[in-house]
């Protein structure tokens, strides 16, 4: 046996406390639900979610499959990363492709080409087809005002909708997972983490992330104040000038509406320094879909989005 360090006092160590809380939440769901699933896109929050799930059940394998709602507007690096992680940990991945819904007419492409809002229908139908009763998401309360009001165990009605006025009180660390047939519970183990906590923990645990979170050269063009990259979702319109810049991504979502930030941060420590000094929130800096209205996120959540 190796030399053992004395245990740190969880209350004195913010990251240890957050980790312990998330592990507790994963185990509660494993104990109370029949068919949980982890929403996994390969982005940093869902990668962290999976990292914590692995720790929660070690040395046993994670007892849940992963679900990726694929908008078809992916960054290659993220898809490769997703598949590598699934392979490495011997996990089962279910992919719901927005393209399939568009192809058979259940969904219609939007005029602006943004597909993030189109994720809701494939998500809800896949949850219902597979009878998933608990769905883990990487949402954090510090991300957005409507998210700040969400419970860790968030009950959704039979239509997958969030009803903010009907949320259950959440007391102590006792989570109420009761639900009626057809209802589902969205579970957010990272609720109490901030963006800084996420990065500090990634550094502490040496969590592997897709390369696009770190500085790299990329051809980008400016639209609505954001640096967008060319991809299967389209490219610059006439008059939008393409430049090669050193950039990184602070969030990873649908390529058509996720912007890059100019950055030279190529290591975790440099990213932490950059995030600490930033005067913009990560969603504000990089997500066109959140800028649609004052209540864009609330409206999407009410429809069944995460």
């Amino acid at each position, binding site marked *: 046996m190796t030399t053992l360090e004395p245990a740190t006092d969880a*209350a004195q160590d913010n990251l240890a406390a957050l980790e312990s809380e998330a592990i507790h939440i994963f*185990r509660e769901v494993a104990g109370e639900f029949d068919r949980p699933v982890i929403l996994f896109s390969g982005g940093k929050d869902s990668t962290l979610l999976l990292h914590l799930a692995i720790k929660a059940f070690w040395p046993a394998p994670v007892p849940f499959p992963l679900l990726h709602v694929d908008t078809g507007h992916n960054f290659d690096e993220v898809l490769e990363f997703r598949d590598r992680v699934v392979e490495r940990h011997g996990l089962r991945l279910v992919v719901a492709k927005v393209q399939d819904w568009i192809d058979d007419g259940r969904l219609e492409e939007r005029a602006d080409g943004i597909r993030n809002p189109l994720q809701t229908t494939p998500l809800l139908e896949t949850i219902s087809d597979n009878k998933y009763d608990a769905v883990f998401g990487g949402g954090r309360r510090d991300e957005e005002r409507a998210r700040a009001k969400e419970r860790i165990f968030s009950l959704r009605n039979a239509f997958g909708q969030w009803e903010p006025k009907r949320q259950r009180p959440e007391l102590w660390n*006792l989570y*109420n997972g009761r639900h009626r047939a057809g209802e589902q519970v969205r579970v957010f183990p990272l609720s109490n983490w901030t963006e800084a906590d996420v990065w500090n923990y990634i550094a502490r645990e040496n969590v592997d992330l897709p390369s696009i979170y770190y500085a790299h050269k990329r051809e980008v063009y400016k639209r609505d104040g954001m640096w967008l990259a060319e991809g299967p979702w389209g490219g610059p319109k006439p008059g939008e000038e393409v430049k090669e810049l050193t950039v990184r991504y602070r969030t990873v979502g649908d390529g058509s509406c996720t912007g890059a930030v100019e950055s030279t941060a190529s290591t975790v420590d440099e990213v932490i320094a950059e995030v600490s000094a930033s005067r913009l929130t990560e969603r504000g800096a990089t997500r066109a879909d959140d800028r649609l209205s004052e209540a864009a996120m609330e409206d999407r959540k009410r429809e069944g989005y995460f």
Partner: protein
Amino acid sequence: MSSLLRLATAGSVDDGKSTLVGRLLFDTKSVLADQLDAVTRASVDRGLSTPDLSLLVDGLRSEREQGITIDVAYRYFATPKRSFVLADTPGHVQYTRNTVTGASTAQLAVLLVDARKGVIEQTRRHAAVLALLGVPNLVLAVNKIDLVGYDEATFTVIAEEFAAHAASLGYPRGSVLSIPVSALRGDNVAAPSEQTPWYSGPTLLEHLETVPVAPDPHDAAFRFPVQYVIRPRTPEYPDYRGYAGQIAAGTIRPGDEVVVLPRGLRTKIERIDTADGPLQEAGAGSSVTVLLADDLDISRGDLIAAADRRPTVTDEITATLCWLSSKPLVPGSKLLVKHGAKTVQALVQEITARFDEQTLSSVDGPDSLELNDIGRVILRTSEEIPVDDYGTSPRTGAFLVIDPKDGDTLAAGMVGKRFA
């Protein structure tokens, strides 16, 4: 690593709570440029001349439309000295429900009053709920002090009345502090005010940064609700059998004598596992996996406890309930009780008293408990469960009352807790 303070705010409608929270976020530079831009734009749209900081925290459309806060919201801010998790609880209808939610995890609560109105019914009620939940530190923020001309006498009257009320609830003097503030103007929130030269105490932020937070007592009796049994059955770990959970109280070391409840099987801790390797010792709040010396039949819902300091194993529980539902509680109701990782059926044998938070007295034998009522009940459970007094071991003295029909959370329960 800076330490963490969990706090809750409470106050009634129009006391300026959202503005105070917005001010704390703003003054700790926790508000980023795009958020402030959005607030400034929305404030201009509403015809205001300065940014309305309450818009930073009122997250739902109906909240912004009505200018009120509807639901508990969680806020995160940090200074070089501490990180803060703030549960912002609204003050109007269902206020007890929201206050109980926010207070259940809080180490400190900030109560707001309007300096023009002083201590009102809801202030007393909130303080009683905070005392009942065992929140150890209180701050009374006497807000809108600018609207009473920064008058010292007005502040002193309010502060003394509140201190007397808090003392009657069992708060020692040192655990209660009153501060004259103007959330709108920022007086005494993060920066000392020049308008209150008569006030020599700390600003609100200074107090939050420095108030001593009692760590979980190390001498508490060990309590470990088993959440999940880890059995990999892989070639590498064919016979591994670990009990996963979060330590609810006390500390544990390999070799410690424990008892598995409710059946009372005795064994020893063989090993404390985590994904990062085994531990020599683990304390309250840690999520670990425990391996035992003997091969016992243990499952989710069992409690592993210190062998020499056992909880009470009983099927009759005397408890205080904060009733959080609009469906009233009547004797004879059949409910579910979630305690630790165990959910059992329960029958309400008797409602022995209802607490009157205004007079701090109790009314015997009420017919029912209604939304926001606090009452004492005797519950009969379908099987024996191991419980502690909430005042001694909150995590194993707390339970949820759940509606078996629709799964709603009906009440916060505290074993053996007397009214303050």
